[in-house]
């Protein structure tokens, strides 16, 4: 009974989520000196589906994020994580290579920013809900990664361009498994 009720009201919830997000505008500068451009008269306002909270989580929320000072999409991902209640210690460094090395992030798992929470590594544009699920499960792994910078991931929203991607879990022996996959979203 509960299930059928859920199916009925699902479209309503989605509708509400979309309306709620229309008030949000992304205007993020890639570098400090870059001007903010808003000369598109009727530009569509962007909102991200990723910011709606679908995973309850009561664990530790203190997260340290390492990123390059010039990385704009890293900053947007930080905002995404903050919207999910994470408390971010935002560390800007030009030496991301040694961060990747320290946390055993191999080149095929690399992305731009690296986050650390509860001793786990969270590499790249991972949806915050997946981090919450992972932290609740506390598996014997190093952490999660969304390699590269797929368009459409949290912090990499690009209008209608949504690339399929996977969240990988990886462990100390180099084994990698799919934790979550996103074909259509």
């Amino acid at each position, binding site marked *: 009974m509960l299930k059928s009720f859920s199916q009925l009201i699902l479209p309503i919830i989605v509708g509400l989520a979309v309306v709620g997000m229309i008030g949000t505008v992304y205007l993020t500068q890639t570098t400090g000196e870059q001007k903010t451009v808003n000369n598109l008269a009727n530009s569509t306002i962007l909102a991200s589906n990723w910011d709606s909270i679908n995973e309850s989580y009561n664990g530790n929320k203190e997260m340290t994020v390492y990123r390059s000072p010039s*990385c704009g999409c890293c900053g947007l991902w930080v905002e995404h994580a903050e919207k999910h209640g994470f408390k971010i210690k935002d560390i800007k460094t030009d030496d991301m290579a040694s961060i990747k090395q320290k946390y055993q992030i191999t080149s095929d798992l690399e992305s731009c920013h690296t986050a650390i929470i509860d001793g786990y590594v969270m590499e790249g544009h991972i949806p915050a809900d997946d981090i919450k699920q992972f932290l609740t499960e506390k598996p014997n792994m190093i952490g999660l990664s969304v390699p590269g910078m797929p368009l459409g991931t949290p912090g990499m929203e690009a209008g209608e361009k949504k690339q399929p991607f996977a969240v990988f879990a990886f462990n100390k022996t180099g084994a990698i498994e799919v934790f979550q996959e996103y074909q259509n979203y």
Partner: protein
Amino acid sequence: MRNINLYQMNRRQFIIIGTATAGIALASHQIFQRIKSDQFPVIKTNDSLDSQKLIVSKNGLLETTLEANYQTINLGGNNAYLLTYNRQIPGPRLEARLGDKVRIHFVNNLSQPTNLHYHGLHIPPTGKGDNVFLHIKPKEKITYEFDISPNQSPGIAWYHPHLHELTAEQVSGGLAGLFVIRGQLDEIPEIKAAKEEFLVLQDFALDDEGNLFPSNQMPLMMGREGNIITVNGQINPSFSISKNGLLRLRILNASSSRFYQLFLESHPFYLIANDGASLEKPVELSELLLTPGERVELLIKGDQIPGQYVLRSLPYNRGSMGMMGGMGRMMGNRSGHFSNNQKPIILATINYNSSVNLINLPTQLIPISSLPGPQKVRRFELNHGMFPGMGMAFLINGEPYQENYIQTQVTVNTVEDWELINTGVMDHPFHVHINKFQILSRNGIPEPYKTWKDTVLVRRGETVRIRIAFKDFIGKTAYHCHILDHEDLGMMGNLEIKSS
């Protein structure tokens, strides 16, 4: 309790689709099957045209048909399903001389619109010339017609599609061919005596079945790179050099994003031409970086112990974010040289053959006159970031490409200095259509030698100053990053050359 259930539904509905264990192995061949389906039957073509690898102008006229098709190509013993001109990888080499008329009957047998860009030719950007704003629909035919200007610098140009948002997909599918203009440099005795070879470098992202990966599964932010690397459509082809002779390698990087850091065992390069224009004298180099769209001409001296020498591409880091990540699992590792640019890649092998009388390097090539001082100085800042209404995009001066907007307006027969500033985290090769430019300086340090270019690498953090004369032709054309995914994602501007 109810909330949790709702959230799970939400997740299932919007997020998890597909099997849990499959990873991102997608059946891209189905996509290929779809795009070349019955709606677009393979049009019967003239077999003699398909086998013609070289088409040379006769009596002042270069006339040919070029057809863009889907075609099965044998790459290293395996079938690959690619996009081709006249069923060849690369497309046929076209050769003309100054003053020749060119007439190309183009047929689009693809399932999507396309067009032709004549990269490196100094021809009108409008009408039937180098008009990159044409949308040639599927099954449509069009005739390009233009004259090779007496102001054209002889050398290597090339042709490829240039339809914004489809450029990377079509070029990385295989659509590219050489367009060679013969002239003064070819007549220098030492160069005339050298053995001439053309090398077209292309990489293809193919799955185990030989199908191209669909664009939406490629690392577009970094710019897609292929796992199969070919020279003239072959894997590790051989070229010969005569003992005591000269080998003239004329190389085009026709890859959509891959950089090649060229290195030949035991043999320095003698650079004699860049982007289809001669230098003043040969420049000795131990290695040479060739970015997408660039061309070089190199002389190699056959002065080593006869044997086999390998031409390699050495690792080069064009961005610091490891954004090729994940491709190893996504793509079948068929050839064994999956490219992450962290290992040297074998491109070709040079074999010595019989001895000839010693040919020396030429000492002088073609003089280059300096351009007069600029009437105007402009800045172009290259980066990526969020843009209202678009989201993540590649930007020039903070703006993504907008089709119906002239980003830069210049006057014909004036000279300008452009300062190209890369404030991002990836390297960007910057290309200007129709007119070549001279590089003045990098980070304020003057270029060591004079050269004409139409594509110049602006490394991350670098400022490159170029001087450009807008000669002869008016009309709307473009400048852009030649990592073609960056172009498609917005790093392009419209350039209007207006009459004085």
